């Protein structure tokens, strides 16, 4: 039935568009290049305000394309850029984002309409992240996909965070009070992340993986051993070289080391990691945490095998994948500590957790009332987060931050803390005070109108803060204030293009 809105009776009105268009879908792209395998994911989603968090988020997510993992193409230690280029084109064509004519192997031209991608991420890890490889990969991704997708190399804590978000984000919010420790076990590393109610609290990274030992399929005849694998052989006094076949006892000893290391991570047993071997296997140690008996989940390739096994599925025959993946999965299933929650809590996406996390969780969505006088200045890439300040921060910290920002020709970012918890009555006064402080330091440091200065703030006050700083848009045209973005411990931030009054915000260099 139709009836006039009471207070608007008989008035033909036009709604001011302060909100996004419902059910208009945006595309998200994730590319994951690891030591062993690479994969891609394309999703579409709508942008809407979450009833739970109150923030703008991706919603109604649909996975449009999910590639099979393929071996990352290398020529020796160098990434095979021709094959990678073809691979990206192939994924885009398969996902519907690109067109078939772009399939020419080695072509660097693309028929992709990059404007349809709202945000995306590309993570480059392990061997693929070594200096020359990472640069070459970043370049080719940028050439093909454009600047909506941010390439990040060798950021192990980010990878742990992404794996948690890709596998346990919703599960963790469902079990609101239950801490969850996710172990993402791949070919080269185990990325650990502890989270509660959807927030990651701690991350770590260990060189524990399935492919430090590579075998002839169907046997334990060694074809390759990584430096970490070699250290284990030495420590365990296993005298085996390439071409030798490990016996069952030797295999069990190696697997046993891995299992003890994983159990030590779960139990917070720092003593285990005091040995030279264990230390050598630690890239970033997960900090001790105050949550006893967290629920243990797994993701990554080994996690995928593990849950198959737990569900009663038959595992492939010995070293079917030419590595220790199957053995690790079996051993984890037999560890009472590691397998405690195997049949009770099921994470999502498992083997593809990282690329899911990359596609769906690496990007935050800003609030829809931001201060952005010149939308054409976007995207902004690799802005260093030079300070985290609050109104209460000492003046010298403010001064130092703005002095640093003034020296950054390509722009800088300052995170503002402490406003989200303010009570309603103080908010306006504090907003005006903050604006005055920023304006004063900005003027004192003689920043130019060509240097982007990004203010990130969690509270929904971006537009008004920007207006007070800039005298309602009449000065300081390089100022950008983006709100409703949760603060992260990261070194850099990227801001994508404006879409429906929102911008995508992604962090990297997490610590």
């Amino acid at each position, binding site marked *: 039935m139709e009836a006039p809105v009471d207070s608007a009776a008989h008035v033909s009105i036009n*709604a001011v568009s302060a909100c996004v268009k419902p059910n208009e879908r945006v595309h998200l792209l994730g590319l994951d290049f690891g030591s062993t395998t690479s994969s891609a994911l394309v999703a579409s989603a709508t942008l809407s305000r979450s009833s739970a968090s109150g923030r703008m988020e991706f919603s109604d997510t649909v996975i449009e394309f999910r590639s099979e993992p393929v071996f990352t193409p290398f020529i020796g230690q160098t990434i095979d850029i021709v094959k990678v280029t073809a691979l990206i084109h192939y994924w885009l064509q398969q996902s519907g984002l690109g067109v078939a004519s772009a399939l020419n192997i080695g072509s660097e031209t693309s028929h992709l309409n990059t404007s349809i991608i709202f945000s995306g991420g590309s993570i480059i890890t392990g061997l693929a992240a070594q200096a020359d490889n990472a640069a070459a990969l970043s370049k080719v991704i940028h050439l093909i996909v454009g600047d909506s997708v941010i390439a990040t190399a060798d950021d192990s804590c980010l990878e742990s965070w992404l794996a948690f978000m890709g596998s346990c984000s919703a599960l963790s919010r469902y079990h609101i009070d239950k801490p969850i420790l996710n172990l993402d076990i791949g070919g080269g590393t185990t990325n650990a992340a502890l989270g509660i109610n959807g927030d990651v609290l701690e991350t770590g990274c260990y060189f524990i993986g399935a492919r430090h030992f590579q075998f002839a399929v169907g046997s334990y005849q060694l074809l390759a051993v990584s430096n970490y694998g070699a250290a284990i052989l030495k420590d365990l006094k296993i005298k085996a070289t390439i071409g030798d076949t490990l016996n069952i006892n030797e295999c069990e000893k190696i697997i046993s080391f891995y299992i003890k290391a994983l159990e030590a991570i779960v139990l917070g047993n720092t003593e285990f990691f005091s040995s030279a071997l264990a230390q050598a296997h630690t890239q970033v140690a997960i900090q001790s945490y105050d949550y006893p008996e967290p629920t243990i989940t797994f993701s990554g390739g080994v996690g995928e095998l593990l849950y198959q096994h737990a569900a009663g599925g038959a595992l492939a025959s010995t070293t079917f994948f030419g590595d220790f993946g199957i053995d690790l999965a079996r051993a984890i299933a037999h560890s009472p500590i590691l397998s405690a929650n195997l049949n009770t809590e099921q994470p999502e996406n498992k083997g593809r957790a990282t690329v899911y996390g990359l596609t769906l969780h690496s990007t935050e969505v800003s609030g829809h009332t931001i201060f952005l006088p010149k939308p054409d200045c976007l995207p902004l890439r690799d802005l260093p987060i030079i300070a985290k300040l609050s109104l209460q921060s000492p003046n010298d910290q403010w001064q130092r931050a703005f002095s640093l920002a003034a020296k950054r020709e390509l722009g800088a970012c300052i995170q503002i803390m402490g406003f989200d918890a303010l009570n309603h009555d103080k908010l306006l006064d504090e907003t005006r005070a903050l604006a005055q402080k920023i304006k004063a330091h900005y003027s004192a440091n003689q920043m130019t109108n060509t240097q982007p200065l990004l203010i990130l703030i969690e509270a929904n006050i971006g537009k008004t803060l920007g207006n007070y700083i800039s005298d309602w848009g009449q000065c300081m045209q390089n100022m950008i204030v983006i709100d409703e973005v949760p603060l992260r411990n990261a070194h850099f931030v990227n801001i994508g293009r404006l879409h429906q009054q929102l911008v995508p915000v992604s962090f990297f260099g997490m610590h």
Partner: protein
Amino acid sequence: MAIKILKDLKAIKLPKPSAPLPYFITMHGRTFTFRDLKHVLGAADISKAGDRKAGLAATDEIMREAARAVLSGLTLQHFFDNPLTNNQGQIDSVMWVNYDIDHATFATIAHLTFGELKDDLLKSTGAHIRQIGVALTGVMVAALTKLLDVHELVLLAKKLKTGASAKARTVVGLPGTLSSRLQPNHPTDNLSGMTMLLYTGLSMGSGDAILGLNPAIDNVANISATLHHLDKIRRETGAPTQICVLSHIKTQLACLKDGAPVEIMFQSLAGTERTLTDEFDVTVELLDHAYKTMQTSSPLAEVAENFMYFETGQGSELTYNKHEGMDMATTEALCYGLARRYSPFMVNNVTGFIGPETHLDNHEMIYSCLQDHFMGKLMGLAMGMAPCYTLHSQVTIEGQQMATELLTAAGANFFMDVYLGTDRMLAYFDTSGHDDQTLRETYNLRPAPEFLAWAISRGIFIEDADGNVQRGANWGNPKIFCTAEGKFQESEFQRLQESVPAIYGFENAGARPSNRVARLMKANQAIGREAIYADLRPAEIGDIALRELHTAANNKSEHLNDPALGAMLADSVLKTLKAEHNDVQIVISDGLSAEAIHHNIPNLLPVLLDGLNSRKLNIGQPILALFGRVKLAESIGDALAAQLIVTLIGERPGGDALASRSMSAYFAYRLNDKATQKAAADFSGNAEIHYEYSVLSNIYSGGLPSIEAGSVIAEKVFEILQYKAAGNRLENLMQHHLIPH
């Protein structure tokens, strides 16, 4: 299949309108004069707010009985010969269609008085009553209804239960059944939110009549997307039902053309042509076109016999002041005469939706619902009911529940299922899946047979050896649909749950929500109700000096019950005002929620004024006007000769405590120079236009917080003044960067 062929409008036999006749009667020594048949009909009904406002209601019981006595003595032929005409003395298109009756049957009853007809029907069986109904116009049905008491309205409607069913994918309205429309409305049309509400409703055995969504945004892209989504959920769950998105009929036709699954076509109907065409943008010809299109192009063309879904409810014609002098029940019956032409799958009556200007309290709402249900059934319609209320009326949940009990006894085909009774998009309160199941258990009723079989297969219901249907283990458990390979997906459930506001919980106590959930829901509703009745406390809205002006509404009661009073300043105030010629005049009014003003103005107004002052605009001293409505802007704008009036006003509270503090900003741009007025007139097609409007809504801490709203409003003021336009014309000029000189 029995699909109805439309009768050519020209073939409908019409009487020739004549000058209205007065009617006289003396009762208990008092002589009553009724100006015409419309006034007899108006006075013969119980007293309702809308009819009182229209000057049609009887002033006392004796007058009412006098009018009923007049009606009792008039023949059906007299009513046929004296059509109720519009204000120009003509039969409008809605009345025209109402004369499409079974003339052969009418010839056998034309001589009866309405008193005789009533007695005859009470002695009759359903088949005879149904046959008579086909021979009556809406006005005749309304006249008869005014003579019926509550028991008679229930009894006669109950006799009409057999034969009131309609068929699409399911058959709805069979004896022994009570169906439901599952209404998964979401404030932003979020698909996950809809999914959550659909899963919840389906798990409660709801939705056998239809999965029907009221969209927040009515455009082809959004409606198509939601239709496809509802279709996907229907297919995935396997629930045998049909889907509908209740957008405008033109939008649905466009969606159908684009290939969207428009299984059942919806439209709101009105009982006068002026309301139907001017306000609902629909003509009989358009309805004919839609009906014929559905017969050939609906995805259900091969299985359905009925394709249309109409909604009505007493009072919409009156609210638009286009009731042509007729009372609310009569215009409602005329809606049914129009609906009858299309043999709809569903007619849903939402009396109570509008507010206290039509139905003040439980008594008025309940009686109107019983009238409407009987009238619809008598006219052969597949009637369902949505007894509902808004928080600014005096209708309460208890009154609504009493209405549903009576309507179930009367044999209503279906009710709504709005989860926990709180509509998250339309800010009103309706029946819930819990209510529907409670009524099924109380009256030993079942869902539609096809749907019941599916629900039993999903463990939602069980049927014991004696054939009794009871709640099964899965009743009320939406998690049964969040599964993959037979296993519950916690993550999926969590994501869906997070997309719905005011969900409160899923625990049940039998067919009712658990006490914890019920208390949460009622506490939130109580806050909403109090927001309406709270008085504005000027001391709590900051320290900026305001000038207080009075509207023509003298108190809260007048304000709530007569929206026109709040749309103008009191005469005594107008006399004191002089033209000020400011660029901007800010007006603050409680509207329907003083709490919205208390919560938003202290932070918003200083920001807004700072913003306006930054551009050195001439700003009138902000005005505080108690008991105001949006159109008050024009009264103030004309008196002060302000260029732009920004009205900050409390909105009608819904069922969520936070959202009950929601405020809107209306921008009324005064078209005071000839060139601008001409441009606006050309753009709108309304030669008399003198204000253009834009609106910014949802200003509250859970939507657009007040501190940000101050900036957004200031920026919108800059745009309106720069482009000398508001509303769609402003957006159009901005899109093309056409700044006037």
